């Protein structure tokens, strides 16, 4: 119980500045707008190739995550030991993402190579009536009526 008391008194400052909060807000808003502008330019012109854009999106997403965790959740201002107990387990994600996506990609390659039937079926165009038509006339396709 003594522990929580040392925390409560040592923790409080009279002033809690709102300036960094708004700065973080503008950064987050700015990054989101950059993502949207890039996506719109890609839709209109197709200029930055999709795989380049995907890399940019991932970097910007991680930047946003950093600002939310560091500033909004205040983790940057905690003790280093506490930061490490959160940050070190989170690095497992790097391994998870690489290995699982790699595994998925490899499954696709192998299946396409050895199961040609699957590959050809997956390239066949869908019947027009089902997809395009139903998509543009939501009123005609009531939920549940399709099947």
């Amino acid at each position, binding site marked *: 119980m003594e*522990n*929580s008391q*040392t*925390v*409560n008194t*040592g*923790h*409080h*400052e*009279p002033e*809690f*500045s709102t300036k960094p*909060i*708004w700065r973080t*807000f503008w950064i*987050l*808003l700015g990054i*989101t707008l950059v*993502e949207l502008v890039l*996506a719109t330019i890609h*839709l209109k012109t197709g200029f930055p190739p999709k795989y380049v854009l995907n890399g940019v*999106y*991932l970097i910007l*997403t991680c930047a946003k*995550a950093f600002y*939310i*965790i560091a500033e*909004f*959740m205040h983790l940057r*201002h*905690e*003790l*280093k*030991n*506490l930061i490490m107990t*959160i940050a070190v387990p989170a690095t497992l994600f790097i391994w*998870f*993402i690489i290995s*699982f*996506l790699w*595994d*998925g*990609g490899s*499954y*696709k390659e192998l*299946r*396409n190579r050895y199961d040609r039937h699957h590959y050809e079926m*997956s*390239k*066949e*165009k869908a019947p027009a009536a*089902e*997809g395009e038509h*139903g*998509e*543009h006339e*939501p009123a005609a*396709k009531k*939920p549940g009526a*399709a099947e």
Partner: protein
Amino acid sequence: MAHSVPAGQKWWSGGKSPFNVEYGKLMMWYFLMSDAFTFGAFLISYGSIRFATNGWPDPNEVFRAFPLMGDTHLPLVFVSLMTFILIMSSVTMVLAVAAGHNNDQKKVTFYMVLTIIGGLMFLGCQAWEWTHLHGEGAWWGRNPFNNADGSAATTNFTNFFFTITGFHGFHVFSGVIINIIMLIKNLRGDFAKRGHYLMIEKAGLYWHFVDLVWVFVFTCFYLL
């Protein structure tokens, strides 16, 4: 906070809280970390299935509607609005925490109300989007959208979309409930009596986490 601690402090020799945070706040951090792994598992399985599939629907074709705009092709507009609402409610939440640090009960109430409104607006947007997609014939086990190359898609796309945004929406919903409870406790003067607003901070951590997850859901489903 780090700078209020004298240098050379011996943290592990007993008598002190080694992380200099309250127990509940520390546990909230570890809960959020475990929750991050749950969401991570969802998103990574989505990613690996997507990598393992030959065709995938184009998100700009699927998510192109906006309320009251009929069939106008507006990719990304609605989801940008949702993102903006959630970031904004995250800001009002930090402002509530800041007001709590200054022991300003009235301001805490004001910002908590704004945060709750933001959360409800986000849930409303999601309800509209789900209803719209359901009206187009999309649901768990049903996918009316073709792949970007015109071939027929599996139901993986809709299954993952509804499961992950649903799980996130459920988190937003519980966050709103928690915030309402915090608002009531604040109005009753519980925190003012206690002398600190650490409960608001813990609710705030949860709320920011919901925002954080949305950042990843936004990227994975709408941008990539």
